[in-house]
Structure formats: C-alpha cells, structure tokens
C-alpha cells in the first residue's frame, strides 16, 4: 500500500527579484507503508527541501508546470489549510531534525510529552506516553534531564522518542545521525531498524552516511532538485 505519494513537486526559493534557487524541479516519489527509505545525494541537491514538502512544512509550488499532487494515506493534501496541516503533522507524522531538535527549557520527558499534547492528549496521559517512548529509546533514567544535560546522541534519541510518541504512520528524519560518532550513529540506526521491523513504522531518512543508506530497504538518490535514475547515477560516477 502506498502511504505517501508526491508528483511534480517543485520548490523555488526566491532570494531576490532575479536571484532564485530551484531546489526541487519536479520530483515524483512514492513511499510504501512499512518501508524504510534513505534519501541520499550531494549537498544542496534538495533533500531537506523534499523532506519539508513531504512533511507538510512547505507547500510545493503550484505554478510553472503541471499541478503538483501530494497524497497521504489516500488523502489529497494539496488544499489543506495551515491548521489542518498542523494537525496532520501532530497526529500522523514524526520529525527528527538534523540540529536543534529540542526545546531547551523543557526536560526530556516534557519535550516528548509536548508532541503528545499537540496530538490532543491531556497532560497526565501525555506524560505517561512520554515515559514509555523514552523507555523505548533506552532513556528512561534521563527523563528529567534538560537537553543541555544530555549528550548529542541522547538528545537525538529524545528527538526520536518524540517522533514516535504518537504512534505516527510516517517518521521523517533529516540526518538523524549527522552529528553522531560512528558508534552512536550505529546505535541510533539499530534503534530505527528495530522500530521499522517490529512496529512496522515507515521511515524516510535523509543521510550522507552510506552505512545508514545501506541499512535502509531502498535508497532514493537526488541530484540538482530531481530524483536521479540509476542510469544517471552511473553517468555521474563515471
């Protein structure tokens, strides 16, 4: 079953009147439910931009080409209001960002609980779910630590716990291991794979790390704002 499907996704950043960057130039992508997909490609190729579009943080550009479509679980998302997109992000999606993932004034449990509250849980229930999610990533004893009292890897695991707390059907992670050394990175990757296999969660990971790419079921390569075909990749390597 197709969980997420995007067609003709374009995104142009306008810096000035003449100065524009075509970050996405017509991307078609399909993510199957239960998949673990890596998005790889050179810096500036549009990976993060694609993540933001798939995660409903940015709308794809409607102009200068065929009308883009974005379907999630069979639903058309192109015409949703900000409020509807926000609610969908809260309930159906989990996010892990490359940097600055956590709210510094909140403890690990509060950071995770916040996402549960956004998805509609009451404070007490959110707290309980946060404790559960933290246990899942092996951070039960760090629940009351503030981000500044956690290591980089621990912070990243808190962010993963937060992404999972509402049992989302899709987790979008932008370089989840980017800041970690290889051992921590392997740990986090192992965790994601377990969650993918045992809970059937769908993961889309942006990464530079071939080890992460290798651990995923499929790799989508990006180049200059487009998904590169296998043949193009051969060409680029040559």
């Amino acid at each position, binding site marked *: 079953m197709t969980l997420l499907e995007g067609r003709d996704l374009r995104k142009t950043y306008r810096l000035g009147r003449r100065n524009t960057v075509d970050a996405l130039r017509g991307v078609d992508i399909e993510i199957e439910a239960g998949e673990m997909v890596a998005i790889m490609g050179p810096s500036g190729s549009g990976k993060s931009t694609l993540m933001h579009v798939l995660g409903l943080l*940015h709308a794809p550009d409607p102009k200068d080409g065929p009308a883009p479509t974005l379907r999630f679980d069979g639903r058309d998302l192109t015409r949703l209001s900000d409020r509807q997109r926000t609610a969908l992000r809260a309930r159906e999606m989990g*996010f892990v960002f490359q940097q600055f993932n956590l709210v510094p004034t909140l403890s690990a449990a509060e950071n995770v609980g916040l996402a549960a509250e956004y998805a509609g849980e009451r404070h007490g229930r959110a707290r309980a779910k946060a404790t559960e999610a933290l246990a899942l990533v092996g951070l039960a004893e760090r629940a009351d630590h503030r981000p500044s009292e956690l290591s980089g890897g621990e912070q990243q695991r808190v962010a993963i716990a937060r992404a999972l707390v509402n049992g989302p059907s899709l987790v979008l992670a932008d370089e989840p291991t980017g800041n970690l050394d290889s051992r921590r990175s392997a740990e986090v990757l192992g965790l994601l794979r377990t969650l993918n296999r045992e809970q059937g969660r769908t993961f889309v990971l942006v990464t530079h790390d071939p080890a992460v790419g290798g651990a995923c079921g499929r790799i989508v390569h990006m180049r200059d704002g487009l998904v590169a075909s296998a043949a193009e990749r051969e060409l680029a390597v040559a």
Partner: protein
Amino acid sequence: MRPLRNLARSRLRTVLTITGITVGIWALVVFGSMANKINALIDGGTTYYSTKVVVSDASGGQLGTAPMSIGTLDAIRRLPEAAVAFAEVSGLLDPTQTTGFGVPQSYAGSDAGADQGREVFVLHAAQGRLLDATDAGADHVVLGSDLARSLKKAPGDTVTIHGVPFAVVGVLEPTLTAPDTSAQMPLAAAQRLYAADLPQVLRDRIPASQLATDIVVFPNAGVTTEALAAAIRAAVPGVTAMTGADFDRNVKSSTAIFSAIIMGVALISLIVGGLSVINTMAMSVAERTREIGIKRAIGGSRVRVVRELVAEAGLIGLIGGIAGLALGALVVFLANDAGRSNGTILFDLTPATAVTAILFATFLGMAAGVVPSIHAARLDPVAALRYE
C-alpha cells in the same frame, strides 16, 4: 509552571520589565486611592447638601466661618419656603493650622434634634452614643473616627479643646468624609469656644449665645433647595446660600480636573510599562525563533504558540500588578498612618481599586504580548528552524 520557566531564562530582563509594570500599577493604586478618597468626600458633600441650603456670611466666602448673628435665623424662619432652620457653629480644632490637604480637624456645634429628622446624612455611633437633648449646655463631645484615633480617645475619656475639658460620650462610625475629623458638641459649647477666639470688637458686638457660623435650612414640601436659596438671598442681605448644585459646581469641577491629572499620570506610567512588555516579548520571541519553529513543525498550532506567549506576557503583568499593589498598599498605609496624627487621611484603597489594578496589569501584559506572539505564530517553521 512553564511560562515561569521561560521568564526565568533571562532573569534580569524579566525583573526589569516587571519593575516597569510595578511602577505603573503602584502609581495607579496610590493615585486611585487618592481619587477614591476625594470622591468619597464629594459624595458625602453631595448627600449632605442634597436636601438643604447652608447659609453663611458672604464676607467669609463659600466655606468660611465669619460669624453671623443668630438674628439672621429669625429672618430665615419667617420665609414661607423654609420648614426648619437652625444655627451651627464650627471652627478649627487648631486655629494655627492653615488649609492643608484633606479635611482639617474641626469642632462643630448644633442643638441635637434641631433638624427635626430631616437630615439625610445620618451619623452613627461606633462607640458610646450620639449627642441628644440631655447634653444641651454640657461640655460633651462626640469624636469623628479619625479624630478619635489620632487623639487616642474613647468614650469616658476627657479631651481638651481650646483649653476647655470635654467629656467624650461617643465615637462616630467612619463616613470617609468631613465628620471623620470633627468633634461634635452642643451648640452652646461651640459658641463659647468660638467667641473666645473672636477679636474683642466682635465679641462685644455679638454675645456668645447669639453666634452662628452657618445656618442650615430645610425647605418645605414642594419647594426645591434652589427656590429656597433664592428666597433667602432675596430676603436676607449679606449672606451666601449654598445648595447641592452650588457644591457640585464648585467642588466637583475642580476635583474632576485633579482626578483627571492623577489618573493621567498613572496611565502614562502604564503605557510605558506596556511598551516595555512588548519590547521584552519581541526580544524573547527573537531568541526563541528556532524553538518556535520546532514546536510548529511537530504539530503545535498557531493558536498554541500565541496562547503560550500571551500567558507569559500576562504573567509578567500579573507579577508586576501584585508587586505594584503591595507597594501601593504599603505607601497608602504608611501615609494614612502618618497623616492620622494631624487628621489628613488622603488615601482610600478600596477592594475594587485593588482588584482593578491586578486585572488591569494582567490584561495590559497580555495585550502587550499579542503583537509579538502573532508575529511568532506567523513564522515559517522551516525558516524558524534555520534561524541563527
């Protein structure tokens, strides 16, 4: 509490902003209490003058106490418009006290029951009793509440007024207006006190028992106080006849300007306080841009972002309001305590003023937080996440 935690992030800034609000609310509380007191005085006066005409000697000015002869009383009693008329004698307890702020301590004499039940500004005894017909001719006195406190006298004590010992028979309930600082006594006693202070020429001309400083006149049924005053002015030369309308004209207009000025000062300080909250919240939003981006990205709605920041700004207002009220109450208490000894109670901090001050501070903070928080809620989450 999460808003409190966010405020604690930049303690100095928060404290400075709260101080701004505190000063504004302090001004509001102190000046508001002053306006309360003034309004109570005016309301008391309005009630007092509402059903009567007060006649005094024209040379003494509106509120002066130039002596009149009781003969004037007979002339007034003969008017068909007048139902009841009686003489009063009042003077300052301390003649050397020049007109200061507030109501000076005074003595006032009239015959008990002379109003024949027409007085609407009725006094009540808190301790002891009011004067009655049996006190006529005796050196008995009933003290106003503030006066009793400043003299530290209770029924049974003796108080010396202008060298004359008086027996205290009662203490009045507070009225928040003139009687609080006055000593009520029988007419004859007041006439003797007053006569003793008069220059020899006048004392020779009018015997003590014929003295009056003002004459209170109640109109007959169907006659307005205005009509009565006009009749008195026409029939008796050389007097002023003051009615409730005159009182309102003379007193209310001047105090209205005064009230407007002091409330204006308080409002200006609050505008400054409000602007400093806006500034603080704008800085706070700028510092937290990435955090706001995170919250929006993981599903925090715009409404939530606004609510969170407005709550924080409201908390600044609330804390400032409580601090301002506490400081204001302290100043009011100390000033009234110091003023009690000379009878100048300037402030009346009512519960309504206190509650208004706190609510106002909280709403001011929240209102000031609205603009920066709407700005925050409108941020593009991705741009906010990338913000350095």
